[in-house]
């Protein structure tokens, strides 16, 4: 069975969700309703099936290369979003999550399915390292999105003439709190991902550090988040500065991901 068998209907459901959220946003009504959540859950179930299918087909954890990486990241972002939504009822996050999930699944669908894995992909490090990293990315994506929503809402409030976003986006305080929590979770996962990545590198290549751009951007992101967390918890700093740092950190994270998925493997071979 083709790896795209489940991915196409997944894309259809996420597209329907994204379109629905967009329409609701434009008509300024409640962003999510049971219809949208139902479609999303159906899409998510198919998405899970598609990843399972890929896992058994490829013979290794499906998170290598653009096809599998984009699909897995979209899955992780969706899962983190659904958990956040159930726990906090936060709807505005849908404004960022649906376009991201749609774009990533589309990219996954268009990217070629890799043939078979190199020996480096066997073993326990790949699933552990990539799962930690991708859920870290997903949490940091939420932090990034909440930072953006913070700045948008701040702009709305500063402009003193409320438009659509004023009504859709939650309070500054809420954006800040959820962003802070997501950074804390995402930073923990990112740290573990870096540690397991280094150990894996050592196990596979006999060296801890490969001096490639991906590693440097991951470390840069790590330091940005260290600074952000330190400022938050030691000096009680928050608000717009925290939002900016959260966005900057995610840019570094996104670079790491893009390098790993496409550029990196094109220039330096698998992983």
């Amino acid at each position, binding site marked *: 069975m083709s790896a795209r068998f489940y991915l196409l209907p997944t894309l259809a459901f996420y597209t329907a969700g994204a379109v629905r959220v967009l329409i609701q946003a434009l008509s*300024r*009504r409640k962003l999510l309703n049971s219809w949208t959540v139902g479609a999303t859950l159906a899409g998510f179930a198919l998405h899970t099936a598609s990843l399972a299918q890929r896992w058994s087909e490829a013979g290794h954890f499906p998170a290598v290369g653009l096809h599998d990486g984009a699909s897995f990241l979209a899955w992780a972002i969706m899962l983190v979003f659904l958990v956040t939504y159930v726990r906090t009822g936060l709807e505005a996050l849908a404004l960022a999550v649906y376009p991201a999930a749609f774009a990533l699944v589309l990219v996954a669908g268009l990217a070629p399915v890799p043939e078979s894995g190199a020996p480096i992909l066997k073993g326990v490090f790949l699933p552990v390292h990539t799962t930690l990293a991708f859920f870290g990315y997903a949490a940091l994506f939420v932090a990034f999105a909440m930072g953006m929503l913070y700045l948008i*809402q701040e702009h709305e*409030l*500063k402009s*003193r*003439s*409320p*438009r659509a976003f*004023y*009504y859709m986006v*939650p*309070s*500054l*305080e*809420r954006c800040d*709190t959820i962003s802070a929590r997501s950074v804390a979770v995402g930073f923990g996962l990112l740290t573990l991902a870096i540690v397991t990545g280094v150990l894996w590198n050592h196990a596979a290549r006999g060296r801890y550090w490969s001096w490639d751009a991906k590693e440097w951007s991951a470390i840069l992101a790590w330091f940005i988040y260290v600074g952000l967390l330190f400022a938050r918890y030691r*000096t*009680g*700093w*928050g*608000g*717009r*500065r*925290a939002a900016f740092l959260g966005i900057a950190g995610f840019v570094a994270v996104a670079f790491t991901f893009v390098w790993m998925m496409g550029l990196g493997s094109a220039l330096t071979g698998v992983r």
Partner: protein
Amino acid sequence: MIVIVGASHRSSPLALREAIAFPRERLEEALALACQQPNVAEAMILSTCNRVEVYARTREEGAEPALVSFLCSFHGRDRDELAPFLYCLTGPHAVKHAFRVAASLDSMVIGEPQILGQVKEAYQVAEEAGTLGPTLGALRNRSLAAAKKARTETGIGRNAVSVSYVAVELARKIFGDLNDRSFVLVGTGKMSELAARHLVRSGARATVVGVRTLDRAENLAAVLGGRAVPLSALGEELTVADIVVSGTGAPGLVIRHEDVEQARRRARHGKPLFLIDIAVPRDIEPSVARLPGVFLYDMDALRVVAEANLRERRKEAIAAEAVLEREVRDFLDWEMSLDAVPLLVELRKRADEIRRGELERAKGRLGLTQEQEEALDAATSAIVNKILHPPTVYLKEIAKNGLASEHLGLVRKLLGL
């Protein structure tokens, strides 16, 4: 048929509504009089500052002139003087109007919450006066339920439209929960006190700054459950406050750019500061709005938000109209199905008469035991009920579809009634 005669803020000037308003203590008398009008079977009077309306159920069509003359004569006014400002609504139009009024869609400010209570009270008074019958009673139940539904299912009541509430809503958009947020009230004017009361009710803690004397600040602080400080402590308070409400009568600036800048440098770590300037002339230097993390709203800005919120409500009103549309249709269906009720009663009565007659005759011939008689009685009842069940359902159905008057005659002939 339901009829509504009245005047509202849409149809008439305030002076006219004042002239025909019903004072609470004369409502019983007015209701009784309204019910004495020819053809009027039930009555209810809704009299608020924005509308005066007489709701009635009439036995036949064409009772509106009687209601208009009742309205005029009760207030001792000339019919020609009032008539141009009055509207007369009948049947489905009246029902729809009653639903829209209760749901505040016909109010001056869409979504205002008071009208629901006023309508409720008006029906209550009519009920106590004994002028509320089954039809207006049903109108009450259905329209109030529909109004609540429209309120919960749409956002017609969601965003604040009065300036002092807008200030609190903006504070929530910045700080989320206002519990244990601290706000500084500068000056003890009426408007700033109103905003302060809303903030305290939302859980914020007050510090009142006395501008000229501390006396009034202390009194107000006691009312708000906060503390009072002199003007010299304002700089200190700015470093800890989340919200500042300023409404002094001072001719010059009370809070300057450098005061705010300094306070933020000293203690704020980029956390938001919300400044509300409700004084005219303004108390807070407008340039502070450029400082990062500082949100400054003056009266004009608050009004802009209130207007934007009202536009949101108007958009939501479209959805609310759709909710009401369905509810009105249900009510009208129910009302029409009432047409078939007398016929159904007659049909049952006739069938039972026949049954009893035949039963008596049979009993006389057969000489049955008590037990056997009861069994026969039950069996014949069941036969009648089973035969009458389909026509009963069908009659209710055609009545609902508004075909009653044409078909009912035929049904009468067929069944020999």
